[in-house]
């Protein structure tokens, strides 16, 4: 039956994460953006809350509560706090969830209990390539079999590259088909350079070069002989739903600041929120945010049902990226000059929101 009410458990998660996002993430957001550095203590606290580990299998110490819908609910709340910090909190999903879904028994054993362990462990996924013609299903990065090893060559960008990342899931084409490979951070032939971006400045991302990087054949996602084309499709869909949910969170954050400001700010003897030009803009923002959220939920639900969610994930992401940008821009406009200065957050929301058309799989549900 059709219904739009989260379960009691999900509501509890939403409430908890929202509180954490408001009290801890949001408060660290501006400083993190200015310093282009993550607040380590906040990430540890998020790990203690079990935002990611709750979704990992119980056999490896996780909570066993895997659900893309729940993941989307949590991602929205985290991004409502701050997008860059949210993506850092969620970065373990980039390695842990593909391993949980598609990894070999050995890969699961080696990695999952560590992601579900006492300390926060960041993850990383190298998918996007620095080319206008980038196609995630047909990467230019190649993997060639050579005896018991694969040799990886190519360039990647927008790779989350936090301190403490131990390995990165590299998507490369083997015989024209996209496959995942687990590559250690210190693999010979792998080099990284930190990027500077328009937004999500607190999240360290890197341009990555793979020059003849050799990994054992068993480091292919799923183990030697696995065919990972469908795994990459699944990663893309889950990444798009996560992005859509994060975009909704960013939009909601910008909207609330604009709404509250409009009720405070007086012109000609009355709050600007009493003027239809402002009030209607805020109404449209609220409508668009709710619409985008429902699309993200629908795509997440379809993933949970085990059905092909390619269309729904694409649609949700398409809508949410537009909405986030429009709402963030609208918020800057409502605040006027105050929206343009860095004392207020909307200018950061605008920089962050612009990225949703570029990002791919910066976190997974």
């Amino acid at each position, binding site marked *: 039956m059709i219904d739009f009410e989260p379960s009691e458990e*999900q509501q509890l998660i939403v409430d908890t994460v929202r509180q954490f996002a408001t009290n801890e993430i949001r408060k660290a957001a501006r400083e993190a953006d200015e310093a282009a550095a993550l607040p380590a203590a906040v990430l540890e606290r998020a790990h203690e809350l079990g935002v990611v580990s709750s979704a990992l299998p119980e056999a490896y110490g996780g909570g066993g509560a895997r659900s893309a*819908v729940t993941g989307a609910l949590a991602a929205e709340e985290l991004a409502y706090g701050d997008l860059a910090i949210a993506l850092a909190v969620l970065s373990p999903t980039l390695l842990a969830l593909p391993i949980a879904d598609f990894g070999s028994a050995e890969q699961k054993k080696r990695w999952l209990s560590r992601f579900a362990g006492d300390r926060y462990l960041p993850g990383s996924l190298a998918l996007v390539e620095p080319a206008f*013609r980038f196609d995630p299903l047909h990467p230019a990065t190649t993997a060639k079999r050579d005896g018991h090893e694969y040799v990886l060559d190519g360039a990647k960008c927008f790779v989350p590259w936090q301190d403490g990342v131990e390995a990165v899931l590299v998507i490369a084409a083997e015989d024209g088909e996209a496959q995942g490979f687990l590559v250690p951070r210190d693999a010979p032939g792998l080099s990284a350079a930190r990027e500077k971006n328009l937004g999500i400045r607190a999240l360290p991302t890197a341009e990555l070069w793979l020059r003849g990087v050799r990994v054992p054949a068993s480091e292919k996602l799923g183990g030697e002989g696995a065919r990972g084309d469908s795994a990459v499709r699944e990663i893309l869909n889950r990444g798009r739903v996560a992005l859509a949910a994060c975009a909704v969170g960013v939009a909601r954050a910008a909207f609330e600041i604009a709404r509250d400001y409009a009720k405070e700010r007086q012109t000609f003897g009355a709050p600007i929120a009493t003027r239809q030009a402002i*009030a209607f803009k805020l109404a449209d923002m609220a*409508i668009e945010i709710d*619409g985008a959220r429902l*699309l993200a*939920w629908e795509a997440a639900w379809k993933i949970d*049902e085990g059905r092909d969610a390619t269309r729904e994930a694409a649609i949700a992401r*398409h809508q949410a990226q537009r909405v986030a940008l429009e709402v963030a821009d609208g918020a800057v406009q409502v605040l006027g000059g105050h929206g343009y200065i860095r004392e207020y957050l909307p200018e950061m929301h605008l920089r962050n929101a612009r990225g949703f058309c570029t990002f791919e799989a910066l976190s997974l549900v």
Partner: protein
Amino acid sequence: MAISFEPAPNTVAAKEMYNRIAREQMRPVARKYDEQEHEMPLEFVRFMWEKGRSPPGSFTGPSDGFVQVCVQAEELCWGDAGLYLRIPSPALGGSAVAAAGTNEQKARFLNPFRDGAPKWGAMAITEAAAGSDAAAIQTTAHLEGEEWVLNGTKIFCTSGEAASTFDGGFVVVWATLDKSAGRGGIKSFVVPAKTPGMKLVGLERKLGIRASDTATLVFENCRIPKENLLGSAEVKKANPMQAGDKGFKGAMATFDASRPIVAAMAVGVGRAALDFLKGELEREGVSIRYDAPAHERTAIERDVIDMEAELQAARLLTWRAAKMMDHGKRNNLEASMAKAKAGLVVTKITQKAVEILGPLGYSQKLLAEKWMRDAKINDIYEGTQQINQLIVARRILDYSSSMLR
């Protein structure tokens, strides 16, 4: 409860049944009744009347409640929005009776719809100088002995012709008992068909939904029994929304139920255009690649994905507002969100479809141009885009109607 997008088997069955009616009974005559404005589509009316009075058959078991009602409206308006409005039923007048009437009133006015010949209900609110601002209503009512006497002119009354002229039908008329009381003086009255003093003086010629009759009704010393007032006769000068009065408040509450349906109707028209467009593109070998990288996407693909996303967002907002009614939650904000979004989205989608279809879209050989004309009404009736924005704005800002006008 859990978030789910899986329709109940009942909803799936209803959707199929209404889609079949849309395909077989509505589409073939859609153009005819668009061109022959003001002509009663007799065959269709009789078919729907009989369909509505036959036992529901397999529609038992768990249902999606009000969402299913929205699905039905979407399917039938996918068939034809004008003909949908022609379906004999108590319609909005019935919603008003159901929302604010006593059990006796419900029985008296709604039971006749169970059998006999086709009948219609209608709601007469709008006047030349009172649309969204219903409190500006000039039509008056006063008590003379055991009767209310109505005087005034109502325009834009959907099904006003049918409801006022076919036996057993009725028109719910909004009138004021005391102009100085503003909204507190507004009451709704049930005027049965053929009541002396209620006169049909004109039918509008419209941009779209031409199969639907839109009447001007004049009330000249129109007398109805005292028992035909919906809610109490007491005039409250304080804010009637908080006064617990079933009159104005009850009448406004019907919008919370009708707006999701109108939004669903809008989605039906939008989907008609989008389905047709996608069918034409497919026939021409143009497929929509949802996972194509951005640089490979054609302008058409981008447009279609945009249309699909917007339409689905409108549909889900509509279903959410409907579902809240099933859960017994106040949905006034969500109903206006759905209505505002759906009205605007389908206006844009149908216009885009005409654009992409080129000469085919502009020609009256196809229905695309008609859907564009039909779609626009959804941005206007049951509260314009702007009045719904105003309602949403008041709610999100926590402002009263006097703080945000």
